[in-house]
């Protein structure tokens, strides 16, 4: 199997007035062709930072300080912004968390599709429009023609997220990165949207990296899983292996916190911890210690 995305020893820092916060400690993983990889972890564990570091969407004061991101034979971290922009949207599609805050509220959906095409030098004509319509239809949008002519606020959450998915897939990217794509949606709609996503990615020869805090999503949709804790990947592997035989204490407590109807719920104790401010050497993921408060 070929590797679509290969991330090696990624280190990201945030330069704040109160010192350098190290958000990622040497994160390494890969996404292979036709594979869905899930990133799980609590808030602040660095899931979203990983995604933004790869796509170079990190806003200052965030900064990738070391590491290597290899995508389709190119080293993304070395690419100038101009070339990176060409990759975004065209080769790497991005699905945002909340469709309403992601879509432009004052621009017609139609025009937003056209803008994406224009940005990548694709001629905007009738056939392009038809393609966008078909894509909307395949994401399960009812009455795509009407949606195309309308605005984001006229849509329900599920429909809006389908529009976002259609935009992310519009130029046929090999890799789709989804940052908590269903967190803002109703429980019933979540399934439909995830099914659509799976159908349009791996079943069409694409790969997907999906950030979530929902272990159920990982269990039913992902091939492999990365468990993140305090800026490190503490465990990774095939979903079945990790879920049945978790190795790291954090993964174990995370799995124990899943609500099972038959027994009493367990929680991961304590608040989400802030990334370390100073920590000179990169810790070995398997040695990242569960903090005192959490060992319960």
């Amino acid at each position, binding site marked *: 199997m070929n590797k679509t995305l290969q991330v090696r020893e990624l280190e990201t820092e945030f330069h704040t007035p109160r010192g350098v916060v190290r958000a990622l400690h040497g994160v390494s993983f890969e996404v292979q062709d036709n594979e869905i990889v899930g990133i799980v972890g609590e808030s602040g564990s660095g899931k979203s930072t990983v995604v933004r570091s790869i796509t170079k969407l990190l806003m200052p004061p965030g900064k990738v300080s070391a590491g290597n991101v290899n995508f389709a034979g190119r080293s993304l971290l070395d690419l100038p912004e101009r070339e990176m922009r060409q990759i*975004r949207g065209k080769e790497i599609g991005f699905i945002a968390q909340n469709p309403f805050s992601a879509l*432009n509220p004052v621009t017609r959906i139609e025009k937003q599709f056209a803008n994406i095409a224009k940005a990548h030098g694709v001629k905007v004509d009738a056939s392009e429009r038809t393609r966008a319509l078909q894509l909307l239809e395949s994401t399960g949008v009812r009455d795509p023609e009407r949606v195309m002519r309308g605005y984001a606020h006229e849509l329900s959450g599920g429909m809006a997220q389908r529009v976002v998915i259609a935009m992310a897939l519009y130029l046929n990217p090999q890799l789709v990165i989804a940052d908590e794509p269903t967190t803002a949606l109703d429980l019933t709609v979540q399934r439909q949207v995830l099914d659509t996503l799976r159908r349009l990615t791996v079943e069409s020869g694409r790969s997907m990296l999906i950030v979530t805090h929902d272990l159920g999503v990982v269990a039913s949709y992902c091939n492999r899983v990365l468990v993140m804790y305090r800026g490190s990947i503490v465990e990774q592997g095939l979903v079945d292996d990790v879920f049945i035989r978790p190795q790291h204490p954090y993964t174990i407590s995370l799995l124990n916190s899943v609500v099972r109807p038959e027994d009493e719920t367990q929680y991961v104790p304590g608040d989400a911890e802030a990334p370390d401010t100073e920590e000179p050497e990169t810790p070995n993921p398997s040695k990242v210690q569960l903090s005192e408060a959490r060992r319960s």
Partner: protein
Amino acid sequence: MIRYIISRLLIAALLLCGLITLSFGLVSLLPGDPAVALLGEYATPADVARIHAELGLDLPFWERYLGYMSRTLSGDLGHSLFTGSSVSIEILTRLPNTLIYMVPGLALALIIGMASGTFAAYRYRRFADKAFTFWISILMAMPEFVLALVLLFVFYQQLRIAPAPIGMLSSAQITPPRVTGSIPLDAIVAGQWGTFSSILGRAVLPIVTMGLFFAAPFGKTVRSGLLQVLQSPQIEFARACGLRPTQVFRYALSDIRGSLMTYLVLLFAASLSGAAIVESVFSWPGVGGWSLDGVLKGDVPVIQGFVLIMGTTSLLGYVILDALITLLDPRTRSKAVAGRRQKRQRATPATIS
């Protein structure tokens, strides 16, 4: 949509009536008796009574109020207590003189503020941003007349490239034949382009004063607005779709244009009152200097006239602003139109669920 605009206009009309009431109330709120202001401290009671009768001050309150309201609404703002000239005519001839430097001044502020604010936002925390913030603080700490005097010192006294601050026309220029009463307009009507361009030349320093003075707060608003929106999920998604920087900027701008437009109208209202200071410095024959004179003398009709013209202009600005913002944003536009649509076809299918 038309219904929406009409409703805005009706509200504006109501506010205008309130404004007239307020300006009427000014007479009783202001310390001192206009008759005393006219005649001096040592006027005899008989003289005071005569002036009161002349000005209608001896009439009962309601009669005075209704009389003032109807006169004002028909466009008669009374006569100056001191010069006897009609306030309406004074305003009509002086307002173009004020607008001739104020509108370009605000346009300049818009351009400078927009450009520098955008630049600073895109260079957040870097050198350009810090330099911008530094200059903004200096400009914002400087009163208008100091800025005007600094500009005069540099460009008139030192560099000698700006004309002397002695008004709109030099004595060498031929005054255009009186048609509208306003000199710049008359110059255009008479085709005296030399005179007109000389007026414009003299307007340059007032324009720059206005431009710099209002560019500072406007630029600051642009910077903070853009900084916020550039961090938003909407812009992140736009960038994640690979949009060009210009497209991303346009998206960001569409997000903050409402607040920028509101701020610009606020600045316009503020600039009308600031006109008094600038016009005094440049001896400019506009409404500002004239009203300042009226205020200092206690010339009640002049003060009332100025309050009314300022208030009406601001009101008009807000009505236009309201309509524009509502119509530019599809979220509010559909609501503004919805009332009519619902009546026409009751069985409208609901929005796509």
